[in-house]
């Protein structure tokens, strides 16, 4: 094969139809309050982790809903389950449980129990 000196770029488009939403389905079955999230970002604002790492709880909620699981898989480990997020959510989402269930779902996905 010829070497052309360049490579194909990876598409960044979220292909909603190609994505697998089994992780968020697992979460919603057990914590339906996630449906109420309007992505206002209040949780992220209160989050300690978000101050110094790339962890944004708001972003994680959307990525899960879209099925962008690989974007979340590693990041979700950064949450220390302190619960500051629940204190501020205006819609009453149990954000801490959402993270807990996400970790559980990812663990199941990888073949172990959380």
């Amino acid at each position, binding site marked *: 094969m010829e070497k*052309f000196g*360049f490579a194909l770029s990876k598409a960044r488009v979220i292909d909603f139809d190609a994505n697998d939403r089994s992780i968020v389905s697992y979460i919603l079955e057990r914590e339906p309050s996630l449906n109420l999230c309007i992505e206002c970002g209040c949780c992220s604002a209160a989050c300690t982790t978000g101050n110094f790492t790339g962890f944004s709880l708001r972003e994680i909620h959307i990525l899960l809903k879209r099925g962008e699981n690989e974007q979340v898989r590693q990041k979700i480990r950064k949450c220390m389950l302190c619960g500051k997020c629940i204190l501020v959510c205006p819609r009453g989402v149990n954000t801490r449980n959402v993270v807990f269930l996400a970790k559980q779902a990812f663990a199941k996905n990888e073949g172990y129990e959380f």
Partner: protein
Amino acid sequence: MKKNEEKSKVWRDYQKEIADDHFFYVRSCIRQSFFPGSEQFFLHLLRDVLGKDVYENPSHTTCTGIGYHADVVPFSTIQTVIARHYSLMKEAGYKNIAISCVTSFGIYTEILETWKHFPEELEKTREYLYKATGREFDVPENVVHTSDIIYKFRDAIAAKAKYPLVNQLTGEPLRVVEHIGCHYAKIFPKYGVGGAEFPHVLSGMIESWGGQVVDYPERRHCCGFGFRQYLVQANRGYSLSNTVKKFSSMQPFKPDLVLTNCPGCTMFMDKWQYTIKEMEGTTFGANGESIPVLTYEELAALVMGYNPWDIGLQIHMVQSEPLLRKMGIEFDPHDKFLTKDGRQMPIPENLLNS
């Protein structure tokens, strides 16, 4: 039927004035190399077949669009270059300009609009041209792309058609993807036949000549050509990715042919099929074949029954034989790489569909 009617209804809002004779023709920088038959055929069609007056001045230059879009030619320079062409027109007594390249067309329309909204730019350009060359100019009355002209005469071409865009093996109209260059109507929709969303310049030709237009999700997407990203080798992957996006999107519709009106787009969509095949092993046509990509002049010539090798189809990367067979066009494979007087030309390697 409803769909096409509605699409036509929308374009009616964008009626574009296209002159019908006495054109000042400005050539493209690259089309003569990559698609040698195209400009030749345009002149033959207009002058010899339709009896029109098309004038060329050998002192016309590149519009310098490549340089302008790559930031090496400043805006005031390119305005002056264009003004010089207008001055050549004025000298020869022409008021209608026919532009061969779509990027060039984009430059001409951008400058026209600039002069409308910023008349001081027009005055400055008059001054620069006069100081540099002693020339004066008028703004032309009619500025069109050569695909607009072929569009205008598409019914006359259809009347002379020997091979309509029909698959002779199945009796069905050929499925044709039309791709319009971004600079044709995306920047100033009113300068394109049909506007920006549903341009009609190429789909009109396809419909007149018996084919079926294929609409697919990435129809409006850019092919990825763009001097800025293309000039630097390491950036070409970005350009290529856009072409791959288009081909992947059109593939399920099984197009027989891609028709374009921009030299860059034709070049990309033709040549990148080779690059993608080399890099990824992917082809986008049926049965591992590649999809022939033609210019509108080449397609008009094919439809009218001209010899494919005179049209220059063998110079493309993707060979057109599968299309020729579908259309029932007779061709002699031995003549393919022979000159007019029978000498053997070197045969290119790595041709697709060969």
